[in-house]
């Protein structure tokens, strides 16, 4: 019968679908931009790209340029969830070097030193630190597997790569030990999944970072083997910084060890740049004193956080644009810093010449113009033009310092919004300052050499030897001040103030510290930031830092 045929046909079709369709739920990503863990490492190039991701985790917020989606971490706006931006904020906004005008969430709490464990910016940097650590762990695991079968130059590359991944992991753990103290601890032994990492003590973490940095020293590239990558000099700088602050982290000073490693840097062939401001221009990748940068590029490494943030946020109120397309009117310096370390006052600036103050130390690159509404005292933290503008970082190049000292050209790969200026994490000048500090703190070395190093920096700053010091001037207070003059806005300030005992408490107060205009003492437990409450709630193994 005709009907039966139709019935059979329908039944057949049903059976066909029933048997074939359940299987097809096993799908794998089909997007050409997405690979699975099983097929991603199909070429040596993939390892380079995976390593590049760890480096990029300090410069970029995700896999789309500018901050246009696909972020690495959640819970925060992409432009804010940038490693360098938050590192800079936690190290600078909490100090006398910078203050911010904006109303973004709890950002003003940094300057007031009133942050809480649920602060979104603290959480962002903490998340960033562990993000970089986790992807380093993943890379190390994958490199270990590949090294079992690799040979020739690929094996040599993998050795380098793995050592760099371990360096970057140590670099992030260094930020963790410095800012959060006792943190969860994971290594390549910990596979991703639902587990609760153990909390490591600050002292134990110190030993781990130290042992890692020492262990990878032979596998890292020689100093300046390739720009942008961590080499032995970066390793030595991180070790000397770790030892320099050892007393804060462990209670035991290690200045002699700091001296050991800074000496290796000093003999590695780096030289000071002739011009201080060239170190902060768009072509600073060519600077002879750059040891380890976080790289940015207007066309290839685009990001609203990072250097784009530092340049734009510090611009406004009629300041020169220096290669960017406009200011966001956020961060500037305060009088305690400008007057306290450069001796400059309001009368050093005039509306005709708002940039060129009469400050002899040319490292003080400030802007102040009453015609544009600038005001020396900060009555309202939210008004950008109260305070003193900073013009240290620029997105231009000086092509010919000799013949045309003030004429500039656009940055390489110039983009009006995204800057090409790299962030100097470590540069030679800091090595000079570490050497001098170790000498003064009794870590060995030679006082005459120390004075020479400081004078080299000051001669560059003054243009002549009018700023030179003698051995008697080289005190701890002088070193803290000199570090401020040389390294301001380079994300060292909070660590320095803590090492010198001036960050919290009432020894040193500045405008709006403790949320009063005159400045007031704060509690010493704030030398450490709290473990973010998100992690306390996600990991039962964690105990909050004292005081929070």
């Amino acid at each position: 019968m005709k009907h039966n045929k139709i019935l059979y046909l329908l039944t057949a079709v049903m059976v066909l679908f029933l048997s074939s369709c359940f299987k097809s739920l096993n799908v794998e990503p089909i997007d050409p931009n997405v690979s699975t863990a099983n097929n991603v490492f199909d070429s040596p190039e993939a390892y380079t790209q995976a390593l590049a991701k760890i480096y990029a985790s300090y410069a970029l917020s995700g896999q789309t340029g500018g901050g246009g989606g696909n972020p690495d971490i959640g819970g925060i706006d992409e432009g804010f969830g940038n490693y360098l931006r938050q590192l800079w904020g936690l190290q600078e906004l909490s100090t006398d070097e910078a203050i911010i005008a904006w109303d973004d969430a709890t950002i003003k709490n940094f300057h007031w030193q009133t942050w809480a464990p649920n602060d979104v910016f603290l959480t962002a940097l903490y998340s960033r630190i562990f993000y970089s650590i986790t992807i380093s762990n993943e890379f190390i695991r994958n490199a270990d597997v590949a090294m079992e079968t690799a040979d020739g130059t690929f094996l040599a590359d993998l050795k380098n790569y793995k050592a760099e991944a371990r360096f970057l992991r140590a670099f992030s753990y260094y930020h963790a030990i410095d800012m959060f103290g006792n943190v969860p601890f994971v290594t390549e032994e910990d596979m991703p999944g639902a587990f609760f990492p153990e909390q490591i003590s600050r002292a134990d973490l110190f030993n781990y970072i130290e042992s890692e940095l020492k262990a990878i020293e032979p596998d890292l590239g020689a100093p300046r083997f390739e720009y942008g990558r961590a080499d032995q000099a970066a390793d030595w700088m991180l070790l000397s910084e770790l030892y320099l602050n050892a007393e804060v982290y462990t209670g035991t000073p290690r200045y002699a060890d700091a001296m050991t490693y800074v000496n290796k840097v000093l003999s590695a062939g780096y030289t000071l740049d002739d011009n201080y401001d060239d170190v902060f221009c768009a072509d600073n990748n060519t600077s002879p004193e750059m040891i380890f940068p976080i790289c940015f590029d207007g066309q290839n490494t685009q990001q609203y956080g990072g250097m784009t943030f530092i340049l734009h946020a510090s611009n406004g109120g009629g300041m020169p644009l220096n290669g960017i397309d406009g200011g966001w009117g956020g961060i500037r310096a305060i009088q305690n810093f400008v007057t306290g370390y450069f001796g400059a006052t309001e009368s050093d600036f005039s509306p005709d010449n708002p940039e060129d103050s009469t400050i002899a130390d040319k490292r003080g690159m400030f802007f102040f113009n009453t015609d544009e509404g600038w005001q020396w005292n900060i009555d309202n933290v939210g008004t950008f033009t109260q305070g003193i503008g900073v013009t240290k970082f620029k997105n231009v190049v000086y092509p010919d310092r000799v013949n045309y000292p003030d004429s500039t050209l656009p940055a390489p790969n110039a983009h009006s919004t995204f800057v090409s200026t790299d962030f100097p994490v470590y540069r030679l000048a800091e090595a000079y300052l570490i050497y001098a500090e170790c000498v003064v703190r009794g870590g060995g070395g030679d006082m005459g050499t120390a004075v020479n190093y400081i004078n080299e920096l000051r001669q560059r700053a003054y243009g002549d030897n009018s700023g030179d010091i003698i051995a008697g001037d080289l005190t701890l207070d002088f070193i803290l001040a000199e570090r401020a003059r040389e390294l301001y806005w380079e994300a060292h300030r909070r660590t320095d103030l803590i090492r010198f005992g001036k960050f919290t408490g009432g020894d040193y107060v500045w405008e709006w510290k403790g949320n009063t205009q005159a400045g007031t003492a704060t509690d010493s437990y704030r030398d450490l930031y709290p473990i973010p409450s998100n992690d306390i709630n996600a990991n039962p193994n964690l105990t909050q830092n004292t005081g929070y």
Partner: protein
Amino acid sequence: MKFKKLVITKLLPAVIFVLVGFTTFGQKTITGTVTDSDGEAIPGVSVLVKGTTTGTMTDAFGKYSVAVPNDATALVFSYIGMKTQEKTIEGNVTDCILSYDDSELAEVVVIGYGEVKKEDATGSIQSVSSDDFNKGNITSPQDLLTGKVSGVVITSSGGQPGGAATIRIRGGSSLNASNDPLFVVDGIPIDNGGIGGMANPLSTINPNDIESFTVLKDASATAIYGSRASNGVIIITTKKGHAGAMKISYNGNVSIGVPAKLLSVLSGDEYRTLLQQKVDEGIVSDVALTKIGDANTDWQNEIYQNAMSHDHNVSLSGSYKILPYRLSLGYTDQNGLLKYSDMKRSTIDLTLSPELFNNSLKLYLNGKAAFTDNNFSNTGAIGAAVQFDPTQPINNYNYRFGGYTAWVEASEDDQKNGMPNNIATHNPVALLEFTDNTSKSQRYFGNAKAEYIIPFMPELKVVVKGAYDYFNSEGHRYTDWLASWSHREPDQNVQDYSNMRYTSLFDSYLNYNKDFGTVHKVDFTAGYSWEHHYYEGTFIHHKWSASDSAVNAGSSAYKNEYLLASLFGRLNYNLLNKYLFTATVRYDGSSRFAPENRYGLFPSAAFAWKINEESFLRDITAITNLKLRLGWGKTGQQDIGSLYPYIPTYVISQTGAYYQFGNTFYPTLRPDPYDPSIKWEETVTENIGLDFGFMQEKIIGSIDVYKRITNDLLNDIPIAAGTNFSNHLITNVGSLENSGIEANLTVRPVSNKDMTLEVSGNFTYNVNKITKLTLVDDTTFVGYDVGGISGGVGNNVEINQVGYPANTYFLFQQIYDENGMPIEGLYTDKTGNGGEVAGDNLNKYYLENPAPQYLFGLSSRFTYKQFDVAFSGRFNIGNYVYNNNASSMALYQNLYNQSGYTSNILSDVSKSNFRTAQYWSDFYLENASFFRMDFVTAGYNFEKLVSEKLSGRLSFTVQNAFVVTKYSGIDPEISGGIDNNIFPRPRTFILGLNLNF
């Protein structure tokens, strides 16, 4: 009457004949044919010998043959949707003509994979048919339903033509997974996620083609859809052809929309006065005075228009021989209040529903196509028009920005043509003129269904369905190179995109429907369903200059798919037509989960008791319906953003996100976070309901009480640092609860030939509470921030915390002075710790939430002869709104920005006198309860107008007629409860014409 005639002429003789002639014989065989009033054979009709359980069913040709005892007197014929008939046996042939049962209770409602007589429904189901739809300039199906169904909250995103809406049935059951209900169009579950260039895919369905909606609310009704039904199901049934000659019908309207209310800002003169005053007070720098102009520009007036729209639909329906058909064509041109915003849509819908082989094979073929041209205009102009300095002229005759006044960097010498200030507000008129933001989209929807009644077993039916839904859009957003904001990211000035998605679906099921006498009735369905969803798209951006575009182009692309496969079954058992039992089960598999977690089992059970059928009520004629319903069921959820959340994947970075080694820039490879053990989110619903009908259905209604508990929430939460490749992960953590009461009541006090009056109301009460949120129960934890606002970045005003509803506001308690004015920056010190109260989140209070606690919909229809009048409105009570417009734009500090430009502020600034932003003050949290009159309409029906055949209706409607609220913003109805930059909803006046030939 017919029946009497029948009794006298046929039954009586028959009875006598039977009594006299055949009482002593044993058995005999009776045959016959059952047809409807049109003479069409009806298969599957139950034929029972009266007073026994002996019986059979008609075959595909409507024929039956049954052996009856000789003493049998009559046969009982029954069929769903038709009046049951009793026929006295006369001779060996008994034919029967069944007539359709038009009473309310006999109405058939569409449910998942089938239909059921309303009186036999066991779940919480509500239907809305075209008579009850909202009237107005409605281009999107969901707007037909707003306020009509208890428990359903529909919030449009604003007045954007073809814009999306947020639809919530009984509150949201998820935190991060989708809270949207499942839409089923003519039996096909559709993917209602938007794609770029078309925000609301529902808007591609022409509302004129919709016959009815059925909303399935409790789990006993929805569980047949398993994993996709946690948020309820909305079934859309479209119109079909009918028997008979071709009927042509035209439906059209022209309308004009006007702004109902705009934000109140300062005029140019008021601005100059206020600025001078604030400079004198030292609050604003005197540099500001050098920036202002002498114009008086009303920027809002410049960007809005009265929106003319028109809409036309023609449908042809009838039967060509055995082929019923319906063809409809629609054209809509809807303009928005914002200049240039526009949607032009053409739709075609063709339905063929032939029945073959003497009706044993029913085919249903439907094809829909929609072609939409969208102009999204530049909604950024809405906020800009509020903020742009009213003292500036529209045009200042510069040559760099096409003449349109633009803010220039303060450091530039030429303040007309210098480098534009990128963070300043951009000229609202220029934003509209220099933006070309349009898209074209196509949607094709094909649906074929075959229903086959097995000839030798007419109670068994096989249904096979296949559907294909294809959807694409292509669009661009171009920024003219003259635009002052085109300099910020010049490589974004030319943006081209295209997106495509399709769904293919196959399902088939068996249905067995048999009456075992008058005692037992069984209706059993079992089947299989399979769906494949696929998406892809590209996005390209570059500078205007062609040479640059090659070098600086950025591009991205995506391609994704997921699959669902399911087995499902339902058993309806009817005992004595008094006790109804339903059990359903669905076994769902989703490609989103690992094989070991892939399948979820979603059962439900329901019981209903038709109390009015009991002997003690049967004689009370005033009670026509009284039914108690109890339901329990479990449903699931798998709809999260990620399609491969359990697979470890790596993603390569796009151009612009490369990193430098030496002189080479490398793309980067990133491992993405994954949760190998991610699984279904599960919601258990319990429901008790009562349906009632009194006085010949003059009063009908229902009341439901429910509780829904969701466990293993698919929740995007912070995870333990160091354990995965991000700080956040979508994983199964947390629980939440919704409970509520719903009621519907319709009263028809007058119903006669000349006059009818019907009044309907519905009531909803829902409370939502989070009961678990984190792995660690830390009592000091305040919750996870949600609810980002504009003004600053990363600022949130809502929170998710255990013990509170989702999206509870989390704010400081404002302190007021003796005159009732808020004191800037002064808040209650909740913790008592002293110091800076605003510096400590622990001082914030958990306050209210955006969801309305009570809803009350009210509508009425009155007809008198050829005139009719109707209205529909609704109360939302207890919905709170954070007035973000006021908190970010009613501040004196905004008058002048240190980057060198002036801005307008809201007149509301006088209510707070705040100088700087106080985003977390509860001063900005307002009770936005409201009553909105959705429409008022009046019409006149005419017949035999020009010729005998022509009839029609002429109507006048006011849509969004008025809103009563205490809320101070322009509109209290805000999806998500944060009011900023909303596209204003128009008040629309519509003249409509309907003609039938």
